[in-house]
């Protein structure tokens, strides 16, 4: 009964997912570039704390992106397995 509507909603959701994933990659790349700039600037004038913070930031960013691209699909699979039938 609701299948045609569901197909439309899922198509929009798939497009939105692809858009968000692309945007996340762009933001992560820009953030990585910023951290590289910060690290090289810190290394150039002897700011060791600045450099180490930039390295930590870049590593954190990579972990975040990996978390988003590996953890969220797994959560989706888990929830799909839990999807309940009507309890009435």
């Amino acid at each position, binding site marked *: 009964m*609701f299948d045609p*509507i*569901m197909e439309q909603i899922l198509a929009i959701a798939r497009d939105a997912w692809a858009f968000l994933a692309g945007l996340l990659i762009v933001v992560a790349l820009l953030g990585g570039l910023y*951290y590289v700039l910060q690290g090289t600037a810190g290394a150039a004038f002897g700011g060791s704390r600045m450099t180490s913070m930039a390295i930590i930031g870049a590593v954190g960013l990579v972990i975040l992106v990996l978390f988003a691209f590996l953890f*969220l699909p797994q959560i989706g699979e888990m*929830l799909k397995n*839990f999807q309940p039938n009507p309890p009435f």
Partner: protein
Amino acid sequence: MSASIILEFLRQGWLALAGAFLAFALLAGMAQMLRISSAGVVGANLWVWQSVSALISLVVLSLFAFLGIPQIVQALQHSLPGGAGCGPISVLGTYASDLIGGLAAVRMLKATFVSVLSASIGGTSTFSQALIECGEAIFGMLIAAAAIPLAAWFLGTC
């Protein structure tokens, strides 16, 4: 006959709502991850913590919707006295308890779906609002559990 048609309609609605819930929960998770990464880059600590808590609340809300709501509905449906009396009153009571259970289940799932939808478009995840609406539905079912035997007694029992 008409009750079974309405129940079938509600079942289809439940399935569609559960599918859309799953899709929007994943989108909301992705939106919160995007917010975390962008806020982390610009150094906005508060945004990061808000997004982390929103992400955790999304997972909790999804588990509540998929595991908690069916159990609550089944428990309440067992507590509803379906066949009080005899004859048409008994049949009407059974239909009424089925319909009340179906409506409450769809309403509870809708409340959690609205919370996830607001989180997926970047708003706050209104977990408390979803719980309040679930509480209202449960309260309505409890009142119905008392009202059905009273109506049967008033209209005449065997």
